[in-house]
């Protein structure tokens, strides 16, 4: 090939020798355009090799773009959920509201197999009653309109208990506008039994409020921002690496172009054109992948959350930005990459001993990031929203710091390595010659792992917060039924007889005060059998009709005063905006003091306790609430569903709670798993680029490998050297990203005002995932290595 | 190479006796073929006749080798003319080897065998020259290389002919 080009060149210079090179008649813009087009042509018509390279870049960029579009579309998708959520929010009617224009809505949410089922009872109060979104008419009493997902669930053979609970005829389907996501279980049932005064029933004048009104907690917004930065940064880093696929082969082609007379600048422009071809194809591929992924996303439910495909719509501005930034980055990165390279007609010369990398400006990036983030430490939720740009800027700078520091670190460490077996020596020397390439390939992994570690830390911390707040004794009781004032406080008796219930404990109580309205002081009056009272206090003796005031506990002075002063007392007093029954009650004259007992959590009961005989009319007065703890028999299947059915049968408006101290942890585990899955996707993406680089390098060295084998090098030595070559930079990358991840995590935890704690298992998991990528890349490059080590590589004839 | 021009050229640095000339010639150019005294004598007498050299003196003892010769102006002009005239490249159009190959083909003998034997002989000589070259000084190396390049050319011809033997046989016997 070189003979041919040489001949062409000599012929060209030999025929006519003009006085000096003629000025290029084209303007600079035309020159650029022409050279770029030439590069495009090379990329698309460069034979098998050119195609392969363009294809690799296109696939890499395509994956990156798809991920980019998907991530930029997620805020929109979440906003879509929020909007539909807001659109069906119930606006309560004021007292003055025209009665014919309202609807009574009863909240009958229930749970089925750990999944929420949103339920509403509807009773229109006039011809102008507002219709909830997603419905075209009100269901008649005894009918219901269900979401498609609930319809499917009800159709399931195993859903007998749910069918029994939602004992309505299906009269229609809730359309998408009335649902938060396609997987939502929801129904609207017609009812004629609810009244405006009932608990969990409200008189609604309209549906829909402004979505903006619901501000997210600042900490959650912060987390969301960090998630996006942590996911997008590695994708960006990967995109940059993908544009450089096949660089070494391309350099040789560029040298050949120089030979036939292209000047140094033209060659760079042509190279940029080649990269542009890959990027443009990648953009197309990425859009295709995104559309495909969008369709798939519509059918998938992750952790009780699913997304309408139509919601996954990147905002035009963001999509335009991606479409413009990716090709521009491709050209920019190529030109930047060729900066340290001199393309000569006979080959590519890299500055033989490149300048030592300096560390000071590399340190500036993370230092700047920390400087941006540090002032926000200790804010927590109370100080309002975090300044967006400061958070994003700080995090981006900190994570970019990894990509700046890693090349320096790899170079500095590798330069000091040396001793070791032959395989080690081969790998180390190789890295010393091209530490930049190695570092570049690992950069993406490092950024992804650092972000993931930081997020894991923060999630773990926040999750601990939430766990402390629940504090239910889930070991003993699994369900709790709460009957508000006005509901059936005797519901515990019904539950007790249900199949699968081994024990119920009912606590009936109300507020007791010395005034009918807005009392200053109040204590709790709990009613129960002597046996139940003995759980709360140390009683010397007890008979029905007795009452006791608890001493040695919270508020015992108030309790003592109310029990002994002889002033009139009122059950369930009224407060401004909340009407109570305010029933007059006189404690029995023989009311006695009793020492309070602590429950299994160490909390002491307080107030006044009484047997039913001392308080008339507990069940029907409407002044008492009941809390029923239910212990289930684990041997009975579906015991919880049976209890829920029993309660719903008594009164669908009664709420049943699942007592589970780990309920929040499960939610967070979901987020963490999601994060881990996302990080894993990014790692796989980057691992694929590592693999491509590795394979390319191996193919380059085909001759060398065969000759090394010829003189007796063990195949294991060569394989090990390939392993070291990947493992050393990845190990350094993991170390650096762990350090940065912990630093970022610490700062973020300080910012959210969470006690700093390191979640070592997840750190190890993340670092282990990085190591796994190395192992996988090495394993996947083995077949090629083994093939290349065959002596066929020596054949020249 | 003509002996006359060579001896004339050697005289340009100063007058020499006949035996002196022979020794200088043998040392520089003789190698495997030293000059006979007779050759020196006959050449010198021809140069004398043409006025290119003159007798500068005679040592006692007699014999042509005892004469001391000096170059004349005409002689210097003649040497200069010889040196500046390029040698005519040898066309090598009359080749014994080619004749042998064709004859072998015509008479039905094994031409390939002939070529192989010749090839082995050429390479044997090349090996010998290479050995000599390894031990020798720069002059030896240049002279051996000259021979080696020629032998190599012959060898390439032998290889080429061996590869085209079938075609040649067809043409010769047609």
């Amino acid at each position: 090939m070189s003979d041919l080009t040489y001949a062409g060149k000599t012929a060209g210079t030999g025929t006519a020798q003009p006085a000096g090179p003629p000025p290029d008649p084209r303007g600079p813009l035309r020159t650029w355009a022409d050279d770029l087009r030439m590069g495009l042509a090379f990329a698309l018509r460069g034979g098998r090799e050119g195609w392969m390279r363009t294809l690799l870049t296109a696939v890499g960029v395509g994956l990156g773009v798809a991920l980019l579009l998907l991530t930029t579309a997620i805020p929109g998708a979440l906003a879509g959920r929020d909007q539909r959520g807001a659109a069906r929010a119930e606006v309560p009617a004021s007292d003055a509201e025209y009665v014919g224009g309202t609807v009574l809505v009863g909240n009958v949410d229930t749970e089925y197999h750990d999944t929420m089922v949103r339920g509403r009872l509807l009773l229109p109060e006039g011809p102008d009653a507002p219709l909830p979104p997603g419905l075209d008419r009100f269901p008649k009493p005894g009918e219901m309109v269900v979401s498609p997902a609930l319809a499917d669930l009800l159709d399931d053979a195993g859903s007998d208990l749910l069918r029994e609970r939602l004992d309505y005829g299906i009269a229609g389907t809730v359309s998408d506008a009335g649902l938060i996501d396609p997987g939502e279980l929801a129904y609207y049932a017609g009812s004629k039994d609810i009244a405006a005064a009932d608990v969990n029933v409200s008189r609604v004048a309209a549906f829909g409020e402004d979505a903006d009104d619901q501000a997210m907690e600042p900490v959650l917004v912060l987390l969301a921002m960090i998630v996006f930065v942590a996911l997008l940064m590695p994708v960006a880093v990967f995109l940059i690496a993908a544009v450089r696929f096949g660089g070494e082969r391309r350099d040789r082609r560029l040298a050949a172009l120089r030979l036939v007379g292209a000047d140094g600048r033209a060659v760079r422009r042509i190279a940029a054109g080649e990269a542009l071809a890959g990027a443009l194809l990648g953009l197309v591929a990425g859009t295709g992948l995104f559309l495909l992924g969008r369709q798939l996303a519509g059918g998938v439910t992750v952790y009780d959350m699913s997304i309408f495909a139509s919601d996954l719509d990147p905002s035009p501005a963001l999509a335009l930005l991606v479409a413009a930034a990716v090709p521009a980055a491709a050209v920019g990165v190529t030109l930047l990459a060729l900066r340290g390279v001199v393309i000569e007609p006979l080959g590519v010369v890299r500055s033989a001993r490149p300048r030592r990398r300096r560390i000071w400006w590399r340190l500036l990036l993370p230092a700047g990031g920390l400087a941006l983030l540090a002032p926000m430490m200790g804010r927590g939720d109370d100080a309002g929203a975090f300044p967006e740009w400061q958070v994003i800027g700080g995090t981006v700078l900190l994570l970019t710091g990894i990509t700046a520091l890693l090349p320096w670190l790899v170079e500095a460490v590798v330069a000091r390595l040396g001793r070791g077996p032959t395989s080690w020596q081969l790998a180390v020397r190789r890295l010393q010659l091209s530490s930049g390439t190695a570092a570049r390939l690992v950069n993406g992994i490092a950024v992804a792992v650092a972000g993931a570690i930081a997020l894991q830390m923060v999630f773990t911390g926040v999750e601990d917060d939430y766990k402390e707040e629940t504090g239910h004794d889930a070991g003993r009781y699994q369900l709790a039924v709460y009957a508000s004032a006005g509901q059936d406080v005797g519901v515990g008796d019904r539950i007790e007889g249900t199949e699968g219930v081994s024990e119920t404990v009912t606590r009936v109580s109300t507020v007791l005060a010395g005034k009918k309205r807005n009392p200053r002081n109040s204590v709790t009056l709990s009613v129960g059998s002597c046996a139940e009272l003995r759980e709360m206090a140390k009683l010397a003796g007890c008979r029905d009709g007795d009452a006791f005031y608890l001493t040695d506990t919270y508020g015992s002075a108030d309790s003592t005063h109310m029990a002994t002063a002889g002033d009139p007392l009122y059950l369930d007093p009224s407060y401004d905006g909340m009407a109570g029954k305010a029933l007059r009650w006189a404690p029995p004259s023989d009311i006695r003091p009793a020492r309070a007992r602590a429950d299994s959590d160490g909390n002491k009961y307080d107030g006044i306790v009484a047997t039913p005989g001392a308080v008339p009319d507990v069940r029907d007065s409407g002044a008492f609430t009941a809390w029923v703890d239910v212990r289930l028999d684990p041997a009975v299947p579906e015991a919880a569903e049976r209890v829920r059915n029993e309660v719903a049968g008594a009164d669908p408006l009664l709420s049943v709670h699942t007592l589970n101290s780990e309920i929040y942890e499960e939610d967070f585990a979901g987020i963490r798993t999601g994060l881990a899955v996302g990080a894993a996707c990014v790692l796989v993406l980057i691992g694929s680029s590592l693999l491509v680089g590795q394979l390319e390098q191996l193919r380059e060295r085909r001759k060398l490998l065969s000759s090394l084998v010829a003189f007796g090098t063990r195949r294991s030595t060569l394989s090990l050297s390939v392993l070291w070559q990947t493992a050393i930079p990845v190990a350094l990358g993991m170390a650096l990203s762990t350090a940065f991840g912990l630093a970022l995590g610490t700062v973020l935890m300080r910012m959210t005002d969470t006690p700093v704690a390191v979640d070592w298992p997840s750190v190890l998991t993340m670092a282990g995932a990085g190591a796994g990528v190395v192992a996988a890349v090495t394993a996947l490059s083995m077949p090629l290595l083994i093939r290349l080590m065959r002596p066929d590589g020596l054949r020249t004839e | 190479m003509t002996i006359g021009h060579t001896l004339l050229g050697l005289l340009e640095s100063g007058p020499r006796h006949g035996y002196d000339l022979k020794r200088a010639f043998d040392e520089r150019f003789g190698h495997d073929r030293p000059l006979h005294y007779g050759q020196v004598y006959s050449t010198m007498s021809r140069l004398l006749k043409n006025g290119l050299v003159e007798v500068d003196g005679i040592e006692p003892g007699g014999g042509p080798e005892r004469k001391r010769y000096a170059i004349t102006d005409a002689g210097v002009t003649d040497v200069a003319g010889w040196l500046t005239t390029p040698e005519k490249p040898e066309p090598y159009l009359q080749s014994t080897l080619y004749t042998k190959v064709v004859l072998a083909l015509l008479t039905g003998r094994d031409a390939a065998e002939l070529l192989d034997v010749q090839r082995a002989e050429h390479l044997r000589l090349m090996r010998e020259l290479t050995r000599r070259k390894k031990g020798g000084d720069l002059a030896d190396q240049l002279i051996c290389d000259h021979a080696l390049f020629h032998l190599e050319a012959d060898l390439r011809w032998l290889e080429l002919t061996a590869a085209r033997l079938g075609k040649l046989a067809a043409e010769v016997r047609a």
Partner: protein
Amino acid sequence: MSTTPPTDPFAADAEPAPILTATALRKVYAGTPALDGADFAIAAGETVAVMGPSGSGKSTLLHCLAGIVPADDGTVTYAGRDLAALSDAERSALRRREFGFVFQFGQLVPELTCVENVALPLRLTGLGRRDAERAARPWLERLEVDDIAHQRPGEVSGGQGQRVAVARALATTPRVVFADEPTGALDSLNGERVMELLTGAAQDSGAAVVLVTHEPRVAAYADREVVVRDGRTRSLEPVGR
């Protein structure tokens, strides 16, 4: 192992018995026979040129002789051992300890310095890094390239690189050196110098050299020649010197 250039007793004796022989080798690559009944023998300390036109199978013969590629048919015997009977690991060990290799190009590891490249086969035989590099130095001196010991192959000329390759081939004091077009990428002056140093050093250490070349002047450095034509060998001279 002695790693300085020794004076080998074999060289003086001119042992007539061949050290490496091959009989009736046959090798087919993708349907095309590369070797079709080739015979070969070389005595200790002898240098044999393997000549022939391109594609005649001379490189394949070298690969089979060195145990890099198994022959489809026929036997290769080195020092009384049938190469086909050895395991791959044993053949590799043989190549490491008893054979040396010089190729046209693509043989030096670009990221190792020249002295490290020469030390590489020694390290593969288990020598420590320091010892291996110390042992490599005299060979660089012998090949007149000790001044570039700490440069990388990319920074030296082709002739120097090839001398480093020769030094590497000889550093393990092999019994047989296999050279495949060792001067193919060099100009004639550099090529001759490399050949002189290769044959000279091999002779001094008593190594036999199998020299594959298509250049007669390179072949002239050998003691005798074997011609490969259409996968068959032809030799007009007896084994030994």
